[in-house]
């Protein structure tokens, strides 16, 4: 690890000009192998205004320092947004979730192996240098939303569920102003600067994530496919929250993980489902629509049929057409 100056933030103002550290589970890992080499590290873990989960009317405000474990176990989240609990619990290990924070999880870096290997060229590490994944191997790379400069995927399970739930990210700007940014506008595509992953600028601090009011009665599923049964990053994942009246789908909120540089959404697919009777034929059509485009790298071509099957399975689960184990129904407090 390269030497750095360590300081503890006493207020949100102290983060400008330094690399923020929260749980450290991603940043320290990357610092140890010198993929990230900050000269100044600012520890935000003592900022009490970033802790705690609180109700904001029907909505829920999750402080940026709330750990993944605390968030997944929170009684309100389990009842009103069980998809979020499941998705978090599908990620990493208990040890990591006990340290990982809400803000840090959103900003975790890709798992592209060349990003981790400083002997290889990588535009995400050094913009303009080239992309070793192109012409290399890459079964963890993305399917959609990539650019010619970077094919990497965002691996967060938590962010995928938050995207389906239409969460907002609350950010305190260096000016002291607080803004709320819908999650879909928070991440940036790679373009020619894959090193810049979000709309955040120096001095910006994530203060919270806001969940909109729970959708009473919705059936929620987080389906994650990975190389081993637990403690592995997703190859593909589907977050689904489905509302029905009888056999008719009245609303489907969907997001897809590990297939794009950020949690992926496809409005055409969500609209195809709306107002329709749940059926396998419908789900197959939705899955085809989702995966029309070819993969940008031959090694991720397998993700297309995998994603189709995962979406179909998740929809069967949520609508009760298939096995419903692991499906949760949103309850709102009586």
């Amino acid at each position, binding site marked *: *690890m390269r*030497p*750095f*100056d*360590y300081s503890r933030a006493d207020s949100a103002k102290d983060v400008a000009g330094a690399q923020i*550290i929260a*749980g*450290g*589970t991603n940043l*320290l*890992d990357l610092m*140890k192998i010198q993929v990230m080499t900050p000269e100044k*590290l600012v*520890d935000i*873990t003592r900022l009490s205004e970033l802790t705690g989960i609180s109700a904001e009317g029907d909505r829920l405000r999750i402080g940026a320092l709330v750990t993944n*474990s605390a968030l*997944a*176990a929170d009684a309100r989240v*389990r009842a009103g947004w*069980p998809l979020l*609990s*499941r998705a978090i*619990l*599908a990620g*990493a*290990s*208990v*040890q*990591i979730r*006990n*340290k990982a924070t809400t803000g840090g999880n959103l900003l975790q870096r890709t798992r592209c192996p060349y990003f981790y290997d400083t002997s290889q060229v990588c535009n995400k590490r050094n913009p303009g240098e080239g992309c070793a994944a192109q012409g290399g191997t890459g079964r963890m790379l993305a399917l959609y939303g990539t650019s010619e400069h970077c094919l990497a995927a965002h691996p967060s399970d938590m962010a995928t569920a938050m995207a389906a739930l239409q969460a907002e990210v609350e950010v305190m700007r260096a000016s002291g102003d607080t803004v709320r940014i819908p999650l879909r506008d928070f991440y940036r595509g790679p373009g020619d600067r894959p090193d810049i992953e979000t709309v955040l600028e120096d001095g910006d601090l994530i203060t919270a994530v806001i969940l909109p009011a729970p959708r009473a009665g919705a059936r929620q599923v987080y389906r994650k496919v990975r190389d081993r*049964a*637990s*403690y592995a990053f997703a190859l593909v994942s589907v977050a689904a929250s489905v509302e029905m009246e009888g056999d008719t789908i009245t609303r489907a909120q969907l997001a897809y993980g590990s297939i794009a540089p950020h949690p992926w959404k496809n409005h055409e697919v969500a609209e195809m489902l709306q107002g329709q009777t749940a059926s396998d034929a419908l789900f197959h059509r939705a899955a085809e629509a989702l995966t029309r485009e070819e993969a940008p790298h031959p090694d991720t071509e397998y993700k297309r049929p995998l994603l189709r099957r995962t979406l179909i399975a998740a929809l069967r689960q949520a609508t009760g057409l298939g096995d419903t*184990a*692991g499906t*949760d129904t949103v309850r709102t407090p009586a």
Partner: protein
Amino acid sequence: MKTTLTVNGEAHEVTHDPRRSLLDTLRDDLRLTGTKKGCDHGQCGACTVLLNGERVNSCLCLTAMHDGDEVTTIEGIGSPERLSALQKAFVEKDGYQCGFCTPGQIMSATAMLREISEGAPSYVSDDLEVPKLTDTEMAERMSGNLCRCSAYPLIREAIAMASEVSQ
């Protein structure tokens, strides 16, 4: 820089480089070598300790960030004369082969049994509200602790035995 830690009930002031991990502080400065370094990257769980009661990978903790915190290591939960219920069960059930992962397994299981008793959910819980200590739940909740000797079935048997003792 200086950091004060309470380790196994005893206060220590350590002087260290900002880069020092909690794992290296425990092993090299405090000579508590029961906590193991497997991967140093959060992938194996050999370095698991309790930080303010919660299990974490000490290799991914900066000592500098834990001033005033309480740490419990394998040395703090029992001694050769007075083994904890889990330590006893691991011996009885042969819950190891080479033993390298064992301190981490035992620290992790110590926290896991408490988490289940407090109703913490897992990805494989049928119902997020009422988790039960099944074999599948144990495998999922212990997945952050790898065992290269693959003693997993016996590790789970040992944990099941200890949980019966404590009930």
